[in-house]
């Protein structure tokens, strides 16, 4: 798999894994504004192990998944004490802290970054994304997945119904960390270079937004969000770059880089929060769609 189309597929795959990494904590009512930090942990683990210890791709990836999960497990205990706004701030503080620490470790290349010599093909990333999505789909069918849904809707009532809210939150957050670690490791091996600027606060915000815009009620929301915000900018890319004259007439003096796509995402977020704050894909929406497509199966099977 190569070329322009292959590149888009790889970015899509990475975004899907990351979207699920954010989705799992959010599905249990914990907004995670530090997704990029967990990805950075995975990426640096994979990069460091393969460059310094010549570890093969498989074990490095496994360890980067583990590293992301362990850091998330540790951190999820810290944030158990915090709620709502404090929780968001804690995840934000954590991601700033992690990138601040990584920049100071010379073995990880500091602010220069880390070159990774082993390369993996895009197919590996795609396969990993499919597996990750399948795991999340299965997880959401289990009793635990049901519990996260309940906590997302009302944590107090869930507690009263006998759900271990704390443990469910820890597990969901840790699973998210594992997936973010995986995305990080794949990132390191596919792009062969890791630097801390790729995992800044802005990319955490970006990730959280496309999960929320896709919808956090069902498995399909993050998938739709990630796909929409990967593919639509690519489609628009040619249209925008064909209009430098227009941009110049508007007084744009900066580079016509990726800024405009963030403007679109931002404006869309503001609009969505007014019109449809629960995200594009909802449980009710899905069951209505099902009823419209398969009217004969109506009411025979609960959605």
């Amino acid at each position, binding site marked *: 798999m190569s070329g322009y189309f292959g590149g888009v597929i790889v970015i899509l795959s990475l975004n899907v894994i990351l979207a699920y990494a954010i989705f799992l904590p*959010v599905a249990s*009512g914990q*907004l995670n504004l530090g997704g990029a930090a967990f990805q950075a942990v995975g990426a640096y683990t994979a990069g460091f192990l393969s460059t310094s210890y010549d570890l093969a791709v498989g074990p490095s990836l496994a360890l980067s998944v583990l590293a992301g999960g362990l850091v998330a497990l540790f951190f999820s205990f*810290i944030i158990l*004490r*915090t*709620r*709502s*706004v*404090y929780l*968001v*701030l*804690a995840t*934000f*503080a*954590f991601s*700033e*802290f992690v*990138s*601040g*620490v990584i*920049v*100071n470790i010379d073995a990880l290349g*500091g*602010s220069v970054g880390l070159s990774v010599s082993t390369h993996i093909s895009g197919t590996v990333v795609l396969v990993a994304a499919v597996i990750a999505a399948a795991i999340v789909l299965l997880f959401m069918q289990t009793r635990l997945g049901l519990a996260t849904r309940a*906590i*997302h*809707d*009302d*944590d107090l009532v869930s507690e009263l119904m006998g759900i271990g809210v704390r443990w469910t939150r820890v597990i969901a957050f840790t699973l998210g960390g594992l997936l973010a670690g995986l995305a990080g490791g794949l990132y390191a091996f596919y792009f062969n270079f890791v630097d801390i600027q790729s995992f*800044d*606060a*802005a990319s955490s*915000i*970006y990730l*959280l*937004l496309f999960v*929320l815009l896709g919808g*956090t009620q069902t498995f399909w929301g993050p998938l739709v969000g990630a796909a929409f915000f990967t593919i639509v900018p690519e489609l628009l890319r040619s249209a925008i770059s064909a209009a430098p004259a227009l*941009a110049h007439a508007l*007084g*744009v*003096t*900066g*580079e*016509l880089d990726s*800024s*405009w796509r*963030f*403007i679109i*995402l*931002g*404006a*869309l*977020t*503001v609009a969505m*929060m*007014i019109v449809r*704050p*629960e995200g594009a894909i909802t449980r009710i929406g899905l069951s209505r769609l099902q009823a419209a497509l398969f009217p004969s199966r109506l009411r025979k099977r609960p959605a």
Partner: protein
Amino acid sequence: MIVLIVQQLINGVMLGAIYVTVALAFNLTVGILNFLNFTIPSVFMLAAVIAGAAEERGLPFGLSGPLSWSAALGVGLAAGLLASLLVERLTFRYLKTRYGDATEHAIPLVSSLGFLLVFQNLARLFFGTQPHSFTSPIADANLRVSGLIVSAPQLLSLAIALSIVVAVTWILRVTRIGRALRAIAENPDATLLMGVDVKRIVPVVFALAGVLCGVAAAIFAVNYGQVYSGMGDEIGNKAVAGMVLGGLGSIWGAVVGGLIVGVAETLSIQFLGGDSVQAVVWGLLLLALVLRPEGIFGHHAIGKGKL
């Protein structure tokens, strides 16, 4: 050595003055409206960058030539005010609870993140990422007191920041609007029933926040002689740290937290090197969140659950 440390403490307090002003803007919206307004760093940046552009190129559409430094700062302030009111219009006004789940408190927050992206990237498109210089005649005046250097604009900034804090406290304590605002913080529904037009009072919070951002931007531009589109991330986010450290919703918490972050920053640059700032400031904040989540002056009610 002592002189060096004292000098860094002075520098830290001066840097803290900017954090204090921005943190206060944060604290007003979160304390009164329970709304963590993530656009504030970018409103601060926008005010500074627009002031810089007004000094360099003048008003848009050829309305005027390059402006003097004080007029440019005024334009920046007005831009901050307008941007903040726009945020109120589009993020806060329409966002009422319509479905109940554990993350619903985040709807205005998420919307403000969207605005953050819009503001930041608009600035990046129109002004680029390079710093623009901002020249003002008072930038070079220094006072020397027994080996210590205190620059005049720094001293002025600290005075401005502190008098703003006092002014805001006065507004909240004494005036009629202030009383209405404190009532809204306590219970918006009951306030409405007591005959306060909540919808018309709420924009006051945003106007205040916008003005505070504009003032912080002016202080920054004069002190550092430059403005750039990345300063929201760099300065504004540390103001968040100061706010949380001091306590969400507490005015004097914002003051103390902002100053602590400023001093921690200059001291860690001095003793651990420039790269350590981020780890030290945010590590401090994480520690504070674990040990005392409500901050130094905060109390439990705000930011926990639904106000």
